[in-house]
């Protein structure tokens, strides 16, 4: 079990190193194959590990394997170790499974790009970073993976480094993530100070003895990291800008790696959160607020990738809601289902963008259903799953989270449930607005002028078509492994690691499902009425939504402009007179002193000889005198 887990962790790292070291010695396509095969190999290793885990009794499924003692300072020791337990196993399967499909898709999507090798090296690094995050055997290694994920996302979002907007988006993502890294680091410092360890087991067992202030500080620090990485309020603004990266990168960030890390973190450190119920409620509240806000913004976005990006933000909001109320298994289940249908939607959107020569504005698309029937069906499956329609995966996963909110049976749970159900309506509306505008109706002028080109390369078609097909099947079937209240495979599997706090009754499940599906259907119906049948004119979009609730403007005003102004002031007061002045002063002083001694250099050889002779004579005199 553990050996396979190590192989799973190290294969993508090996591939990143190999592609980097081989450089131009291999062709671009070979580099792509190296990355694809290594990620596929990692998935195979994860499956082997999973099967051997299933062979054990549920109490015996956690295993910590330490390669060597990495860091030792006094009593504080951290080993380079990986933890293989049901939670990390589920994440490993998702990351490597969906990740390898996305990398395989990139074989076709990135074909012919100038810097394919760099791209595939980064992709492998990204998968490795996420595996490091989920497999890390202690909090420090988790933070290592956390930071590496931030780095890889920076590298990939800024992949088109010749585009200033891509570079700006990469920096934005990195800075916002660094903020989360910092709060997490603070939480870890407090933990080291108070418990003397970063091992999961030690920290969790000693946490009960800590004061509530310390615990709240630690939980808030962890929540800060989770919020930044998962693009939840108030650190959500980097995610839509991250669409500057190539489409498979967006798929990887949204489906397999990165944004799901926050949910994983909360579930992994749930003993800490359970000791500070208020912080956990804040997490649920933030998730709920985000799912509503992202759903509203998604209604007015015109970039196909941004619509999907906001839908991710919204879905992660559901996961935070689930993790925040203690329905860990349901949150992880939605995480898995979301990985399938979100990767499907992104990769489908990638096919559309690829076919339309890089066009991403849905206002210029239209009527693609006849031209690209297979893509239409795939996207339809993804959209239905996203909107939570039975019997697709989103239905099983999302409704059980809403049911868990009901199961709290207090006013807070009811509010969360209400907003979550409203989010289901928005999800149906914005998803099908996008689908109807892109695929339905008459062909737009742009589509007529730029007809989707038929693939002339079989590998390109295969890599893109096959992976989307596999994901479509997964988006349909992926939810069937758990039908809450009847058949709870995921909950049972995760129980040894994260026992859910709330259990919804059968009635609550039914109520939640009926509400969510009805409202989702209403959303789809409204979208059909307005955007497909065009019975009523599309409503004018509101400025507040266009501006994404003015978060960018707010942060510019709060952080960017004060920082710029402060730098200007420092430039005038410190940099100019003090720093530049002192350097200029040193130079001037040196030059003046040099000028004084210049007169000695007469250029007359005989004078120099005389100076030598006279100096010698003086030395001789001194020598004699001293004797």
């Amino acid at each position: 079990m553990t050996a396979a887990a190590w192989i799973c962790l190290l294969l993508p790292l090996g591939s990143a190193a190999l592609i980097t070291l081989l450089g131009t010695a291999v062709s671009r396509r070979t580099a792509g194959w190296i990355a694809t095969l290594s990620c596929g190999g990692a998935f195979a290793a994860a499956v082997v590990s999973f099967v051997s885990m299933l062979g054990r009794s549920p109490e015996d499924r956690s295993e910590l394997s330490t390669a060597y003692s990495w860091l030792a300072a006094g009593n504080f020791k951290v080993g380079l170790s990986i933890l293989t337990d049901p939670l990390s196993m589920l994440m490993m399967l998702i990351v490597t499974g969906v990740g390898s499909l996305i990398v395989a898709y990139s074989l076709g999507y990135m074909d012919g790009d100038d810097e394919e090798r760099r791209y595939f090296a980064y992709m492998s690094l990204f998968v490795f970073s996420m595996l490091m995050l989920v497999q890390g055997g202690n909090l420090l290694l988790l933070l290592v993976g956390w930071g590496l994920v931030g780095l890889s996302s920076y590298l990939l979002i800024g992949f088109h480094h010749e585009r200033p907007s891509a570079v700006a988006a990469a920096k934005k993502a990195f800075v916002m993530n660094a903020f989360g890294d910092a709060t997490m680091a603070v939480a870890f410092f407090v933990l080291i100070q108070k418990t003397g360890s970063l091992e999961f087991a030690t920290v969790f067992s000693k946490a009960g003895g800590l004061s509530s202030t310390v615990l709240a500080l630690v939980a808030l620090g962890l929540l800060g990291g989770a919020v930044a990485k998962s693009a939840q309020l108030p650190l959500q603004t980097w995610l839509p800008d991250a669409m500057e990266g190539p489409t498979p990168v967006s798929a990887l960030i949204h489906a397999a790696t990165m944004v799901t890390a926050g949910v994983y973190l909360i579930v992994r450190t749930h003993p800490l959160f359970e000791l500070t119920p208020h912080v956990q409620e804040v997490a649920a509240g933030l998730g709920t607020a985000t799912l509503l806000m992202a759903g509203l913004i998604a209604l007015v976005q015109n970039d196909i990738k941004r619509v999907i990006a906001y839908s991710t933000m919204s879905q992660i909001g559901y996961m935070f809601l689930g993790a925040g109320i203690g329905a860990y298994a349901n949150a992880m289940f939605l995480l898995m289902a979301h990985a399938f249908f979100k990767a499907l939607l992104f990769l489908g959107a990638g096919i559309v963008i690829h076919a339309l020569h890089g066009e991403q504005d849905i206002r210029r698309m239209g009527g693609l259903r006849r031209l690209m029937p297979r893509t239409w069906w795939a996207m339809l499956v993804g959209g239905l799953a996203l909107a939570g329609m039975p019997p697709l995966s989103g239905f099983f996963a999302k409704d059980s989270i809403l049911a868990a909110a009901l199961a709290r049976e207090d006013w807070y749970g009811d509010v969360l449930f209400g907003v979550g159900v409203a989010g289901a309506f928005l999800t149906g509306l914005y998803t099908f607005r996008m689908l109807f505008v892109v695929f339905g109706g008459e062909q737009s002028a742009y589509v007529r002028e730029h007809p989707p080109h038929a693939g002339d390369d079989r590998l390109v078609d295969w890599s893109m078509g096959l992976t989307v097909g596999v994901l479509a099947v997964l988006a349909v079937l992926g939810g069937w492994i758990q039908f809450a209240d009847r058949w709870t495979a995921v909950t049972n599997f995760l129980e040894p690691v994260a026992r859910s706090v709330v259990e919804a009754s059968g009635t609550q499940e039914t109520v939640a499902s009926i509400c969510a599906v009805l409202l989702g259907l209403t959303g789809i119906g409204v979208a059909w009425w307005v955007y497909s049948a065009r019975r009523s004119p599309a409503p004018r979009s509101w400025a507040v939504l266009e501006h994404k609730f003015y978060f960018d403007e707010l942060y510019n005003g709060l952080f960017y402009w004060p920082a710029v102004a402060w730098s200007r002031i420092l430039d005038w007061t410190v940099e100019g007179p003090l720093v530049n002045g002192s350097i200029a002063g040193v130079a001037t002083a040196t030059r003046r002193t040099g000028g004084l001694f210049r007169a000695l250099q007469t250029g007359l050889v005989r004078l120099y000889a005389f100076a030598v002779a006279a100096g010698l004579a003086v030395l001789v005199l001194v020598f004699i005198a001293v004797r």
Partner: protein
Amino acid sequence: MLGPDTAAYLIVSAFLFATGALGVLIRRSPLIVLLSLEIMLNGANLALIAFSRHFANGDGQIFALAVMAVAASEVVVGLGLIVAMARKKLELDVDKLSSLRG
């Protein structure tokens, strides 16, 4: 010990050295300056050999041989420079060659 005693040699040696040094300091022709330098070196050599005899120790003689070898190479370089200067029709006057003045 045959011949005059060490003091006499040292007097001659000091005289040679002083003559050479004076030549270096007051003459302006590079050829003569070079020649005076050689005289200084020979004065030093004489002192080395005299002391070598005085203390019955061969080291000084070896030194003198080394100095001769160095002097010979130095002359080659120096004369080469002077010939090059003459070829370039530069004035053979060390005071005129003062382009390194600061």
